[in-house]
């Protein structure tokens, strides 16, 4: 955005401190505008006619540097772009990279439906939510408009996920568009040969379009400028993803250059970037090597500015790391690292339920909690204040010690002797070396749980209730 201090935004607000936005003062609201945690429309008074001009001006100033593009419709709509910074700690990255997995028009129907279903149903539980993937990219291998159309039709019938229509032949794209026009698909792609025809389609159907200029940033920018002039800024830029050697290095350079120019304020190139790690399959014959390399390229370009990408491997060993590296990069770094230390109940524990110790590192805490809860185990979960450091590191670094455990227990008001029938603490397996010390400090008996909370259910079967000594 063009401004970076709350004061600059404040000038445009009504300055009545009416509180309708939920903030006490306009200045507080202005601060939320700058860190993008609230929207301008949350200030309802500003929507009044008399403030129209100010609203417009401020809205313009607050626009993110990189344009935000929408693909698809309804609940599954995918937004890409919208970033304001080059490093996540400067604010946060917005609109996580969207992953499109490919299907192609020479697949037989059964195989096609199966693949689409696999993609749309893929999920991985993580810190209270499921990680999922986003889109289907439909490739025309046949170059036959009719064949492409029937594949598009089948895909649209099978999924609500947004789609990318992939062909360099405008007749093929048109055939797909005719069917998908109500689903706001992304066109892939206009290049230096077909751009006039593809532009016509993008304008006529009013859909977003990818501009493809492999390793030619001048051409890429020319195309972006031309398309904008013709009337569409719903653009995605593909500077080409070359999978190996010096070409891959150049790809990396192109991605970082395009994004830097955009964030630096060059509006003509300030669009989301498309990566195509799919090209790894052009460099590797063996499917495991190709999957690995595709995942590696995808990960690099997720970290460095890819906003959307087309992928081929649907092996879990490709998709899981892709989902997690994306989460890594797009997690808001301003969100708290810790949960409040203290005693938490999971399920409805009673006197006979176990007392498990973990750290107050949010990630550790939520992982343990979800493992327990999803297996319907009732227990007490003790989050010890380790300054938000995970178990293994906290034991090594001295943030998780017997004294800390004792202190945590004392401060929580929970009385092991009175509130449990067993006076037993279960330490995480990775804190096994603290067993003796914790017994000495607390006077409770101490059991060592598994090193991974995913194994708590099995551990419970064998070790709970504890044998009376």
């Amino acid at each position, binding site marked *: 955005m063009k401004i970076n201090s709350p004061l600059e935004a404040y000038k445009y607000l009504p300055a009545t401190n009416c509180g309708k936005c939920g903030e006490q003062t306009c200045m507080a609201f202005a601060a939320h505008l700058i860190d993008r945690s609230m929207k301008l429309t949350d200030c309802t008074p500003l929507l009044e006619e008399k403030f129209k001009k100010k609203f417009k001006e401020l809205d313009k100033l607050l626009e993110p540097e990189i344009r935000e593009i929408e693909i698809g419709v309804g609940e599954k709509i995918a937004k890409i772009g919208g970033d304001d910074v080059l*490093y*996540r*700690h400067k604010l946060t990255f917005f609109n996580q990279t969207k992953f499109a997995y490919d299907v*192609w028009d020479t697949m037989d129907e059964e195989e096609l439906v199966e693949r689409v279903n696999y993609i749309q149903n893929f*999920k*991985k*539980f*993580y810190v209270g939510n499921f990680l999922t993937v986003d889109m289907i990219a439909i*490739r025309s*291998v046949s170059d036959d408009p009719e064949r492409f159309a029937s594949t598009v039709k089948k895909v649209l019938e099978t999924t609500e996920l947004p789609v990318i229509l*992939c062909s360099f032949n405008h007749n093929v794209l048109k055939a797909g568009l005719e069917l998908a026009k109500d689903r706001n698909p992304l066109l892939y792609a206009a290049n230096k040969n077909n751009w*006039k025809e593809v532009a016509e389609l993008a*304008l006529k159907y009013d859909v977003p379009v990818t501009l493809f200029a492999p390793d030619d940033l*001048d051409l890429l*920018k*020319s195309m*972006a400028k031309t398309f904008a002039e*013709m*009337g569409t800024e719903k653009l995605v830029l593909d500077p080409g993803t*070359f999978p*190996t*050697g*010096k*070409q*891959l*290095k150049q790809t990396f*350079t192109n991605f970082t*250059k*395009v994004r830097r*120019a955009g964030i*630096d304020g060059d509006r*003509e190139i300030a669009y989301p970037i498309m990566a*195509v790690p799919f*090209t790894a399959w*052009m*460099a590797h014959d063996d499917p495991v090597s190709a999957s*690995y*390399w595709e995942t*590696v390229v995808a*990960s*690099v370009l997720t*970290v460095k500015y890819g906003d959307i990408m087309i992928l081929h491997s649907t*092996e*879990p*060993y490709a998709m*899981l*790391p892709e989902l*997690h*590296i994306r*989460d*890594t*990069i797009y997690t808001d770094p301003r969100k708290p690292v810790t949960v409040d230390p203290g005693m938490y109940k999971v399920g409805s524990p009673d006197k006979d339920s176990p007392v498990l110790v973990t750290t107050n590192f949010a*990630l550790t805490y939520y992982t343990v909690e979800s493992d327990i809860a999803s297996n319907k185990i009732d227990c007490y979960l003790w989050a010890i204040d380790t300054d938000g*450091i995970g178990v293994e*590191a906290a034991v090594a*670094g001295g*943030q998780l010690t017997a004294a800390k455990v004792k202190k945590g227990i004392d401060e929580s008001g929970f009385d092991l002797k009175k509130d449990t029938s067993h006076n037993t603490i279960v330490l995480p397996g990775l804190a096994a070396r603290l067993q003796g010390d914790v017994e000495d400090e607390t006077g409770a008996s101490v059991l060592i749980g598994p090193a*991974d909370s*995913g194994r708590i*259910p099995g551990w419970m079967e064998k070790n709970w209730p504890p044998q009376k000594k």
Partner: protein
Amino acid sequence: MTNKMKLKELSDILQDLNVESLEGVTIEGDIELNISGGGGLNPALAYALGNEISQISLHMANIGRMLGFPAEQLFASAFQSGEMPQTDKFTTSPKLQELLDSKFEVSKIDSWKNTIQEVTLGASSADGGSRKSTVTLGGENALPYYFDAEMPHRNYITMDVFDMPIGMAKAVKGNYEDVINDPAEWAKKVVRDFNADMVTIHLISTDPLINDTSAREAAKIVEDVLQAVDVPIVIGGSGNPEKDPEVLEKAAEVAEGERVLLASASLNLDYERVAKAAIDHGHVVLSWTQLEINAQKELNRKLMKQCNLPRESIIMDPTTAALGYGLDYAYTNMERIRLAGLMGDDELTFPMSSGTTNAWGAREAWMVASPLKQDSDWGPREYRGPIWEIVTGLALSLAGNDMFMMMHPTSVQVLKELTQTLYGSIDAEELDISNWIGMEV
């Protein structure tokens, strides 16, 4: 309205439209439009012409309707849509015949003024050691692989060797079963078979809670490893803050002159002792903190000011958390450290090292299957583990990490391939991707 219409009225309508005044357009005889200029027409003029012509046709169509002809249907079918909503788009956007000229430009970052300290590990006979190869880290003037400045040294990988059998993920263990009781053979194997640039010997058996191996005994293992391989080595303690300084001291003594990396000094142990051992015997210290940039500054400052450790003898380990288990903090911590260093914070201008092996702590790396029933199938773990280590490492390589401590041979191979590709030292056959869409896979 009357159904009759005279030709005169038609010409009046046309007159109202001012068509005659439009240059390049004349209406002759049986309403023939003649547009001169063709493809070379300038876009603005073409647009204006298009607008006029559309206006005319609209009026013509009205005339047609007055005459009882359903002209709107004709338009609808001609434009292949119900209500001609797209005409709107066309009237506001000029259709261009040529791409507009534009040159891509981007500036280099001028606030990156500082150079990261160069640190060399290992010493050859010329420098009083016995290593055949040495490794130099650091020297960067930009973020890794960026076009702003050439990166002077590639990334290096040191592979883990332990002084006793330890619990390992199945996929890792398979590679070391034959050498698990012999650190020297283990070290040889990672250099010979797995292309390790360096070897880390972890003296974990010295932990009083494990075997309590004496510092003197442990030093013998260090000697064995130095004998077995001729690459630079890293010496790691057990992580016990009371015992480690003594263990590292003895190890430093027997490794005199070899310029090993002592891992590590931290704020919760006697770092002065570790620093002194490095100074006395010509080694480098790994300055280890836990995901806290200010703690890293503090420790580096203490090592330099309080212990007089030279700048070229410090490498930082700001802690590596596994992918999915805090890598976001580890990544950003490193990126901030490197950016601060480049922008002039002299307490942070040191090369960095990552305990990438930590990735194997993630359940996704080693568990047979997801413990959660709702998850999609996790697939075979022998492929999941190595890629977990690779992706953890590659993210940190982009944040500025120079050296990786790793465990699985496949991970080492792939991460080397990637980091050296981005560094620019790997050639591959050039590929034409311009038609990638049609590829059969």
